[in-house]
């Protein structure tokens, strides 16, 4: 008889024997008892594939696999693929590891973005190649179907798996994919390089917040209201407090300093106390810290809360009614946002045709694969450290400090890798609660959201109702556009005002229109808060206006691309907020690029329905849409970022900024920028982000602003560093500063070369710190309503999308996307490609799969299984054009890219659906049942 108390198995070639633990899943055993934290838990419900390990040759989800079942088996985890080199100094990129060809290929193909899903992707691919050494694209898609990537690096993942397969079969090394360099590429900027963090991400050694462990660490859980509106009548925590292992139970009465948090408007209670109002299901009532997560979960269940229900306000339109229940003391209106240009009466009087239509967009969840996690660690000197993947570390610091009653400097945010953000990690999630419990207990406290909590609690994309009225001359010239928007900002403001402002200012599209009027009502409701999400309001209004442009083209019998070209913003145009665009408007070139490629693929009439030759029930057509999106905060907000550069004693320049990396590739952009200015290669530059003690404030990572703002800060800091070194060396070596240059690892001082490491040491010995700090201020902008420059720059895009519709079922597929994006300057082409492809696929998700359902304030979509994000099966063939109309104040001419890439995809898809089957989609997402039933009606 085997020892019944032990599980024995082999992991990565090592035999382990551990005591059985009731209820333990393999993923938990690997992560917690063996420290193999490369295996990630994204959903804990067998949906996302992040936890995939290989057991006896087969890919298995370890989050749903009883540890005891692993007895006697052989397990390979991500840590088992690469081997650490003995002497630890391998060739540059792979460093101390000899990586598996899959790992190598993932790096080279740019398949690694936020990196959280990558261990799962690689392990699933590894099992595939073990059983099928030469898989076709279809076989790769079949095998990876349920291994989700929210950055949607699927095209690169497919390329990487194929390249690895070839390399394994042939023994040839993996070569880099072809990615065009920037048009005016510099020595370093504009060329593709591998992400600095990619080796850690493909080997499983990359650390995200939940991978951290501290001695004596407690685990926290939050008691949530789970009722959308009401008054808390009583909270009884006695049973929870009595549970063995519980170390602290806190409620609102334990708040002694600031009681609310929030990014712009502080209206979000840290906890709702007795007599206070519950405004959405995710409101926190009590928080618990206990020895284990299980005990904390049990304790939460023992807390008795009585809430007297109040009437529920479930939509923005209802919230605006006069007799609507008031959610906040200030009322339900967060902001009435207005855009005014010209004269509407004369604009519509000038029109030959006027169209009016109302559109609806649904809420979306970011569904980043890494759930929110914060660890608070109290230090003996009274300071508090917070380990968290946050998009705005300095805002976290301020909000945590104010609730704890500390000075801001007493709180240190130590930013961790972020497993996807997309705007969803800007607000406070668990930071404040973890810190309160740490302050109370004096012990480190980890607060990890499970997927259900993540879906219920954090702010969503605004559900928006958009009424559009458009007037045009018979040739298509727009004369007037009037918009009325209702945005559902949910229970708390978050960034709602900003998001809906962007929706409003972009509501009439990237067109020059003499007469514009837009009114937006950003409304509080009892739904989960809505805040920042990639596209930031512009996505919603682009869906409306781009659909309307197609309706107008049909009404006027004008070519729908010509209609857009005729009205498109160009240099010299004045936007609807009164901003004169004096440079960097690449929209017409984007349209031209897409149009040319579209005609090549689909002939001169790409928007007609084409029936499949073999199946008359399959019809295909193309759709078209354009978009623009601001770079930076704008609207009069001071937009600045700090960057620090230090020449370290080992001769490496360290670039520091508290800006955040969520997978979008900021470290690469900053590394390339500094290397270019300092005459170095990328290996001579290291980037440190998101630590409020060590890195200067880079502002929020939002609004497609970091390449521009922090990129500029780093560029200027690098120039200042060069000047500082030049001045010091000129004096020391008594040479003309013009004779000093910097090359890879060295300073060239007239005819002699001195290693940078030596220079660093020499300066330090002389008490000169080789360190510079630069704070970059973006050009001043004007608030909405004052005219003038509201934004420092805009990015532009055009897309054509092909759909394939099954007339019998209404099912819609997207086989092809053509996309052109004006990004100013492609600083980091490989990263840019990842953004463009991932953006298009996220757009496909928004159009076809993603529906965050809220019914009367209750979240129906409370599992990842119910919120479908695109799998690798949704990967279209993507043809991408980079358009570069540099903006003069951008770093090397660059402007934002993170958001523009997905905005046109959605209306391009819905327009294509209309072109294919004649069913107009005016609410998202596309509903295949509606398409089919509309066809049935047409037939009757």
């Amino acid at each position, binding site marked *: 008889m085997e020892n019944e108390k032990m599980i024995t198995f082999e992991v990565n070639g090592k035999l382990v024997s551990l005591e*059985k*633990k*009731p*209820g*333990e*899943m393999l993923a938990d055993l690997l992560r917690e008892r063996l420290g193999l934290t490369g295996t990630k838990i994204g959903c*804990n*419900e*067998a*949906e996302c*594939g992040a936890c*995939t390990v290989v057991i006896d040759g*087969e*890919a*298995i*989800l370890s989050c*749903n*696999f*009883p540890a*005891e*079942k692993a*007895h006697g088996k052989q397990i390979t985890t991500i840590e088992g693929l690469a081997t650490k080199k003995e002497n630890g100094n391998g060739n540059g990129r792979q460093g101390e590891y000899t990586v598996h060809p899959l790992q190598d290929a993932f790096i080279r193909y740019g398949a690694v973005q936020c990196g959280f899903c990558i261990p799962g992707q690689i392990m*699933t691919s590894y099992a595939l190649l073990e059983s099928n050494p030469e898989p076709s694209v279809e076989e790769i898609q*079949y*095998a*990876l*179907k*349920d*291994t989700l990537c929210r950055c949607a690096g699927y095209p690169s993942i497919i390329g990487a798996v194929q390249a690895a397969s070839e390399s394994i079969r042939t023994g040839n090394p993996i070569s880099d994919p072809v990615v065009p360099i920037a048009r005016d590429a510099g020595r370093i900027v504009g060329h593709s390089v591998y992400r600095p963090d990619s080796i850690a991400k493909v080997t499983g050694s990359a650390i995200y917040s939940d991978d951290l462990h501290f001695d004596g660490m407690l685990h926290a859980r939050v008691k949530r209201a789970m009722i959308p509106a009401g008054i808390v009548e009583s909270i009884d925590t006695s049973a929870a407090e009595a549970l063995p292992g519980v170390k602290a139970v806190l409620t609102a009465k334990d708040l002694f300093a600031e009681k609310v948090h929030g990014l712009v408007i502080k209206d979000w209670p840290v906890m709702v106390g007795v007599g206070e109002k519950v405004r959405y299901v995710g409101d926190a009532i009590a928080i618990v810290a206990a020895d284990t997560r*299980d*005990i904390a*979960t*049990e304790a939460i269940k023992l807390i008795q809360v009585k809430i007297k229900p109040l009437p529920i306000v479930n939509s923005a339109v209802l919230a605006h009614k006069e007799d609507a229940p008031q959610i906040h003391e200030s009322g339900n209106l967060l902001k009435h946002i207005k855009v005014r240009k010209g004269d509407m009466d004369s604009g519509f009087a000038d029109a030959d045709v006027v169209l009016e239509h109302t559109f609806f967009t649904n809420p979306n969840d970011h569904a980043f694969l890494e759930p929110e996690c914060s660890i608070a660690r109290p230090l003996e000197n009274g300071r508090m450290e917070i380990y968290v993947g946050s998009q705005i570390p300095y805002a976290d610091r301020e909000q945590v400090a104010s609730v704890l009653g500390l000075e801001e400097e007493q709180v240190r945010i130590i930013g961790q890798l972020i497993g996807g953000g997309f705007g969803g990690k800007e607000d406070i999630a668990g930071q404040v609660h973890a810190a309160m419990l740490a302050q109370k207990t004096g012990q480190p406290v980890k607060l990890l959201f499970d997927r259900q909590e993540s879906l219920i609690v954090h702010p969503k994309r605004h559900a928006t109702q958009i009424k559009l009225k458009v007037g045009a001359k018979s040739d298509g010239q727009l004369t007037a556009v009037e918009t009325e928007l209702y945005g559902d900002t949910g229970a708390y403001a978050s960034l709602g005002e900003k998001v809906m402002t962007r929706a409003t200012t972009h509501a009439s599209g990237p067109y020059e229109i003499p007469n514009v009027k837009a009114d937006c009502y950003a409304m509080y409701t009892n739904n989960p808060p809505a805040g920042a999400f990639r596209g930031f309001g512009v996505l919603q209004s682009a869906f409306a206006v781009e659909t309307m442009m197609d309706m107008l083209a049909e009404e006027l019998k004008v070519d729908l691309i010509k209609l857009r070209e005729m009205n498109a913003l160009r240099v010299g145009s004045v936007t609807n907020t009164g901003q004169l665009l004096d440079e960097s408007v690449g929209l017409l070139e984007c349209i031209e690029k897409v149009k040319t490629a579209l005609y090549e693929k689909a002939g001169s009439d790409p928007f007609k329905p084409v029936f499949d030759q073999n199946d008359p029930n399959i019809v295909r057509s193309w759709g078209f849409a354009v978009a623009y999106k601001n770079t930076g905060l704008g609207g009069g907000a001071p937009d600045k970022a700090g960057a620090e550069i230090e020449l370290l004693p080992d001769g490496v320049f360290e670039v520091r900024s508290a800006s955040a990396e969520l997978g979008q590739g900021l470290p690469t952009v900053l590394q390339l920028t500094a290397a270019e200015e300092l005459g170095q290669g990328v290996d001579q530059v290291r980037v440190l982000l998101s630590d409020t003690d060590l890195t200067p404030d880079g502002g929020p990572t939002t609004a497609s602003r970091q390449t521009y703002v922090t990129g500029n800060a780093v560029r200027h800091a690098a120039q200042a560093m060069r000047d500082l070194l030049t001045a010091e060396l000129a004096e020391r070596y008594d040479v003309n500063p013009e004779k000093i240059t910097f090359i890879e690892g060295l300073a060239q001082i007239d005819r002699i070369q001195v290693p940078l490491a030596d220079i660093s040491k020499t300066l330090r010995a002389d008490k000169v710190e080789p360190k510079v700090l630069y704070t970059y201020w973006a050009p001043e902008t004007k608030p909405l309503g004052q005219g003038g420059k509201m934004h420092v720059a805009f990015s532009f895009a055009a897309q054509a999308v092909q759909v394939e519709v*099954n007339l*019998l*079922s209404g*099912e819609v597929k997207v086989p092809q996307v053509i996309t052109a994006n004006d990004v100013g300057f492609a600083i980091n082409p490989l990263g840019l490609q990842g953004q463009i492809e991932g953006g298009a696929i996220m757009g496909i998700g928004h159009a*076809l*799969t*993603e*529906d965050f*359902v809220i019914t009367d304030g209750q979240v*129906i*979509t409370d*599992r990842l*299984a*119910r919120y*479908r994000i695109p799998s690798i099966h949704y990967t279209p063939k993507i043809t991408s054009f980079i358009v570069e109309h540099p903006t003069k104040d951008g770093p090397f001419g660059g402007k934002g890219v993170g958001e523009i890439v997905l905005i046109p995809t959605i209306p391009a898809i819905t327009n294509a659906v209309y072109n294919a089957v004649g069913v107009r989609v005016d609410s998202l*997402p596309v509903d*295949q*049942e509606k398409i*089919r*039933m509309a066809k*049935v009606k047409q037939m009757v």
Partner: protein
Amino acid sequence: MGSWKEYSVVKTLDEAVHKLSTAIEPVKIIAGGTDLLLEIQQGHQPIVHTLIDVNNIDEMKCLEVRGQRLFIGAAVAVSKITNSPLVKQHALAVSEATGLIGGPQVRNAATIGGNVAHALPAADGMISLVAMDTQAVIYKDKSFVEVPIMSLFKGPGQSTLEKTEILVGFYFNLKQPGEASAFDRVMRPQGVALPILNNAIWIKRNRNIIEDIRIVFGPSGPVPTRAERVEEVLKGYAMEQSYIDLAKKTLRETVKFRTSKMRATAAYRYELADLLLERVLKKAWERTEEV
């Protein structure tokens, strides 16, 4: 507070039965556990005390030809069934259906026994087995009993298996000349990963005549049912469009679909039933020509 306290691995059916009657309650059999564990975790099933792991019972892991029949053990992973040359040869519908259960990693753990015992009215694998006129093997009172697969279902999510009865495996006939099967389904891209409608068809052909046919749609009621009236319309007639159209008409008159919130209306399900009936029937028919 895990989902179980005691995890017991058994090697024989008798050991399993013994455990089932003596272990601390609540007790559940686990094979793949892919559905069961999630349901417990998410509070849809009570936490169990004892899990009895049947993955090491040889009979239940077996997939082989026995006489004129194919036997598939209840604890065979669905990915093994999908890829089995025997299953592909004799019951392509079962291979197709099991290849669509869950995702690839789930299929490596999930078992066909779990798919059936769960008694969901539209489980892909189960629907395909119904079309194959499968006999289920149950171990009860120390002997093996064969029952028609349909008799296993009491209601949605409820099987007729008693506490100490163990679902051991499934038998269906080997394919004869002129026979074939096919499966397909239509999903909704949003929301839960359940098919709006699936359909499995087994067919026996004699020249251009449909000599015999079995048609199953899921979900079409609380327990799986054959579309017998539709079968009658096609049985004994030529494979011609006019009969297919008549079958569709009969389907609308005799098969009951219902509206399920956020998944599909009944009206849309009838549209899909038309589509699937024609598609799957034609696919199965074309396969008969391959012999």
